[in-house]
């Protein structure tokens, strides 16, 4: 089953792969690594509590939120503390819906408005949408093995198949023991590095790995970064599908 919570938690580089890769290859190659990574992070649904601190050259702000994701990848985020407390974000397929307590209507984002910053972070709403079938969107290669912060990693490069992809090149360093991402660098077609995503403090619960800390560094805006720290992560809890409906958003 495809997993999209990773995307919602700003883990753009940690794309959950389709279960099409159910059969592991006998030797270590790119597909084997991705398949193993997908298996290491697979769950049916999840409920996460996290804190996010956004920093730029002018200061920093923080907020906490709860995130819920069902088996279809539908995701609900509720801001529980901070200045934006009460706001909700619902992702249904490629659509993003926003609930503001003082607004009479649910706002559906589309077009260029998806490029707006997501909760003041260095990600846009657009980063949260899109088809998760990365096998169709990217071609990938295994570049070799490298040591990163004392961790032995497989280094992989993903190249977009379409020009419409925001990140044309993604380099990923994957822990060769746990098969979880450690570092992702997102770049443009010209090779300009745009963002670094650093994963650490992995939670290991019932055979599922989940990053306890995630840092996004904006390489274009100097001094701008977002750090998300997970305070609680529960998997396969049997969430009600009604939770992920527009009608329920205003309640």
């Amino acid at each position, binding site marked *: 089953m495809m997993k999209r919570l990773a995307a919602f938690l700003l883990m753009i580089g940690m794309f959950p792969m389709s279960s099409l890769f159910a059969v592991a290859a006998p030797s270590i190659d790119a597909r084997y690594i991705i398949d193993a990574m997908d298996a290491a992070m697979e769950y049916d649904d999840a409920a996460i509590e996290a804190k996010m601190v956004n920093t730029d050259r002018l200061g920093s702000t923080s907020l906490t939120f709860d995130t819920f994701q069902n088996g279809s990848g539908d995701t609900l985020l509720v801001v529980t503390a*901070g200045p934006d407390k009460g706001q909700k974000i619902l992702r249904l397929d490629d659509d993003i819906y*926003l609930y503001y307590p*003082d607004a009479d209507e649910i*706002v559906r984002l589309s077009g260029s408005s998806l490029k707006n*910053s997501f909760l*003041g972070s260095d990600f846009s709403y657009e980063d949260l949408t899109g088809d998760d079938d990365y096998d169709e969107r990217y071609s990938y290669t295994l570049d070799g093995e490298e040591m990163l912060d004392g961790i032995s990693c497989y280094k992989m490069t993903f190249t977009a198949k379409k020009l419409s992809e925001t990140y044309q090149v993604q380099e990923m360093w994957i822990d060769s023991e746990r098969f979880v991402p450690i570092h992702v660098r997102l770049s443009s077609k010209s090779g300009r590095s745009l963002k670094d995503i650093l994963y650490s403090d992995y939670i290991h619960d019932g055979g599922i790995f989940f990053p306890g800390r995630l840092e996004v560094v904006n390489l274009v805006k100097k001094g701008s970064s977002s750090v998300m720290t997970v305070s609680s992560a529960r998997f396969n809890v049997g969430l009600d599908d009604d939770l992920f409906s527009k009608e329920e958003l205003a309640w």
Partner: protein
Amino acid sequence: MVSLALKNCIRNVRRSLLTAIAVFIAIWVVVVMMGVMQTVVADMIRNNKEYESGDIRLRIADYSKYENIMPLQFFIPSVDDVCRSVLSVDGVRSCEPLSRLSVSAYRGEQLKTIQAVGVDTSISHFTTGRDVEILAGRMIDNGKREIVMTPKLLSELGMEVGDSLTILSKTSTSGSNGASFRIVGIVSYGNSEYNGDVVVMPLDQLSSLTRMDGGAMEVLVHIDPSAGLDATIASIKLALADPSLEVRSWDEISLIAPFLSMYDITYLIIELLFFFIASTLIFNTTMMSVMERKREVSTMIALGFSRSSIIRLFMTEGMIISTLGAVAAAVVGKATVALMGRYGIDLTLFGTEAVDGWGFSRMLYPQVSWSTVLSVSMICLAVAFGATTLASMRVRRIEAAQALREEN
């Protein structure tokens, strides 16, 4: 000599009329043009002060420093305290907290970028200004989540008075927020800059939307005309004693101020152009007069008139005609501008794009002072004097005997 010159003036009425008309048109055009242009400039300055900057504008200095990224976190938190201190300064007439920023209007699942202006409805020019016209509904009230908007925006959004519009904004805490506002009125502003995609709402509501906690992005200070700008700024800085606040005069921050001196140069160039054209006409008619009256000049020389007295005669003739033209032009020019000032010039007749975004009013009411009319007339007469003098000098070259023979 004057009576002789007068007689000569009416000897060739058509030529005299031509000279007078040249002077008349030059002065009339310049007077009317100056009336209109000076009014445009005065109007832009007034609009700039009333809508944009006040006489003096207060901001957090870091806001100006990073203005290009709209750093809402640098708002003035305690505007009431700031205004209390500012109002204690001699010469300060009013203190107006205000916020304006780009926001998004959500309509039909589309976001449209518009400008939101948050004002204290009891004192702001946006709500109480004499050039603010309520076309339908009513004006907004402090403390209520309501907006007024321009007819253009209302039409673009396909909405009506009484409808609710959801507005999304960046917040001072780097997040985003949204709220729905009831449209209570349609307004038109004297400043055409604000007749586009603009909504005006109570400052407290915009402050809540952007999470400024009752603060404002800037404070506009209006001072008495008699109060010195620099002295008042110094007093305000002393009263506030807050180095994080930037206190600047309108001409320091205005986009139009650097161009004001260019307007003066433009006036001068146009003025000189018209006077030059008039002077060539005066020169030519005077020269023709001299050439046609060679025999008369020769006879006068034969009768014992000195050449310089004949030159003075021609000059007197020229100046009499020019003065008559100037007086008529001054009176008619002043009357024309007064008429335009009474009924106004609707600039939208030239198309709304001719005025929108330029910061001046859609209706102009030109005015010109008598001193301006007098100075324009005097400059033109000086030019006419020069042209007449140059042309009259031709008398010196006339050979009296030869001229008399040729004429016979």
